[in-house]
């Protein structure tokens, strides 16, 4: 490399001076562009697919949300401007669903990420059969939502559910999980947590393995217990990863749909007899596909998108501020 470029330079010096400085520069620029063109060509498929299956539906949903229209007549609705948005903000169903989405989201995300951190920490030790445990951890993630939810709704069943049987065995009252607001939301959060904990744990584990072992040895010599090492070495090193998983889990939580849909076992979109676990995802589906107000459903979809945007934005700002404080 060095030899080659040296030769080129010498050749350039030896050659008679060019009439102007521009001509030799141009071919180089063009060559660079050609090289970049290949780069664009390689990423093009992604952007084509993105445009067709994400960007277009996204804009189309915005368009639909400005119309009063039904599922059967999706292109022929009447223009209503922002009326759908006003209706949504005045709808008690929307606020109920928003509240449920948030409470289930917090009930699911917080324990899930904490448990994932703990699990990853344990798996980071040189355990016998590590690979086995890692595989097992990823299995819930590989299970279909429908199958998992059906099994869990059996477990949480009022009359013959395993959990109630156990509660009664230790002398506690059986709980009608599906009927109560808190109990149903806890149950759904358990299903979500069960599915996603292993996935997050693997992400944390990967990040933990890139922390140099010397840091732990230094901390150990400094007199840090295992817990202090976790607190002062592991957690700070994982901060960017933790922020990432919070964002991903939050997006998942706002879009929560399959678990509450199937929790009662019959796939209704009402989210329980009094909507006690109706999430925004369910509400949207109910508006569009049960009540055929597709314009209203598109509005809810956009509201969900805005909520995600705000949460991710807040996270990004927090991350930026922390990074600045770090400097």
């Amino acid at each position, binding site marked *: 490399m060095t030899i080659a470029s040296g030769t080129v330079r010498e050749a350039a010096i030896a050659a008679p001076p060019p009439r102007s400085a521009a001509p030799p520069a141009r071919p180089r620029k063009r060559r660079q562009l050609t090289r970049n063109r290949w780069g664009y060509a390689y990423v093009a498929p992604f952007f084509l697919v993105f445009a067709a299956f994400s960007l277009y539906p996204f804009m189309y949903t915005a368009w639909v949300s400005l119309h009063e229209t039904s599922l059967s007549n999706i292109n022929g609705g009447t223009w209503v401007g922002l009326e759908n948005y006003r209706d949504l903000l005045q709808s008690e169903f929307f606020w109920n669903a928003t509240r449920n989405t948030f409470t289930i989201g917090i009930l699911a995300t917080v324990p899930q990420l904490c448990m994932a951190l703990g699990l990853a920490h344990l798996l980071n030790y040189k355990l016998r059969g590590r690979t086995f445990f890692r595989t097992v951890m990823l299995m819930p993630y590989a299970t279909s939502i429908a199958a998992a939810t059906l099994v869990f709704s059996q477990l949480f069943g009022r009359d013959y559910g395993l959990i109630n049987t156990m509660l009664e065995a230790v002398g506690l009252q059986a709980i009608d999980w599906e009927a109560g607001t808190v109990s149903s939301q806890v149950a759904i959060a358990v299903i979500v947590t069960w599915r996603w904990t292993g996935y997050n744990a693997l992400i944390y584990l990967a990040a933990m393995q890139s922390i*140099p072992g*010397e*840091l732990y*040895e*230094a*901390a*150990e*010599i*400094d*007199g*840090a217990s295992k817990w*202090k090492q976790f607190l*002062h*070495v592991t957690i*700070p*090193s994982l*901060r960017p990863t933790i922020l990432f998983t919070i964002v991903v889990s939050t997006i998942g939580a706002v879009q929560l749909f399959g678990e509450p849909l199937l929790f009662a076992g019959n796939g209704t979109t009402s989210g329980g007899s009094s909507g006690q676990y109706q999430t925004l995802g369910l509400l949207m589906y109910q508006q569009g596909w049960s009540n055929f107000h597709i314009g209203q459903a598109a509005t809810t979809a956009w509201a969900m998108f805005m909520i995600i945007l705000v949460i991710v934005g807040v996270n990004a700002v927090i991350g930026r501020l922390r990074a600045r404080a*770090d*400097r």
Partner: protein
Amino acid sequence: MATVSFQQASRIYPKSERPAVDSLDLEIADGEFLVLVGPSGCGKSTSLRMLAGLEEVDTGSIVIGDRDVTDSPPKERDIAMVFQNYALYPHMTVEENMGFALKLAGLSKDERATRVREAAKILDLEPYLSRRPKALSGGQRQRVAMGRAIVRNPQVFLMDEPLSNLDAKLRVQTRTQIAALQRRLGTTTVYVTHDQVEAMTMGDRVAVLKDGVLQQCDTPGVLYDRPANVFVAGFIGSPAMNLVTGDAVDGGVQVGSGMLPVPRDHLTRAAASNGKVTVGFRPETVRLVGPGEGLPVRVNVVEQLGSDAFLYTSLADAPDDVLHSADLVVRTEPRTPVAAGQQLWLGADRGALHVFDAQTQQRVD
């Protein structure tokens, strides 16, 4: 302050047959600067980590002061360690890095700040206290690592190749600074390096390891003047000692077509096992002798250093290839009129000869 002693300490890593450290016996005096030196993979780091409590001791024991610490965790040993890559906490400032151990020990904020500032002053780190490690140069990071060790005022400092990530000039500078700092603090120090110059310049005593076995532990002067075996003889000193092996004959050692005179009593003892003798002599003790005497050599390279000159030569009957091009090194007066390709005859001062049994590799006098 405390003494340190390794007593028949061994470490055998799982799934390996050969011990990484084999029955190490070392007594380190209170306040001493002891250097562990040896080629890469000889078990220096392992020995140090055994002392730190980061590595198990499979057999034998380790004593700090009058306390057997063989089975104690690191934090109960009252030691501080400087790692090769410094191992600074990346998310903590210099001040937090240095004060972390004190914080864990439950010292008050004021007390911590005072001690950190004191150490920072000694190490010239005061302007950087609020910086994070990634905003520091290599030399500054190295000093923070040192600072983290000294704020704790431990019984023993352990340092594992702390200078190996610095450039050559800074390494020489820092070398003297560390040695001076240690003298000033008077803290017992065990220092690991693969660089024999570092070992010789810094250590009160130097322990030479090879394949996990202690070869010799003595002051730099003794190591240089009376190496205990062929390995130490070849390892200590730069350029290395010349070593030739030949048959014991009447009055000396026959090497190829040449003969090196060796005192009779040394010769008989060295030849006791199989009649072969290894003789060593340092480049600065070589004399050029008349044709037909001593060892005939061919000059391959002449290196003029200004203050003196080195001749890199090979035995005249050795094959003429790169492998043997610096078999025997001679230090001469500068501007000696010698050219590459020339034939010379080498002799050595009798008193400067190191005689080893070629079989056991041990020194005989």
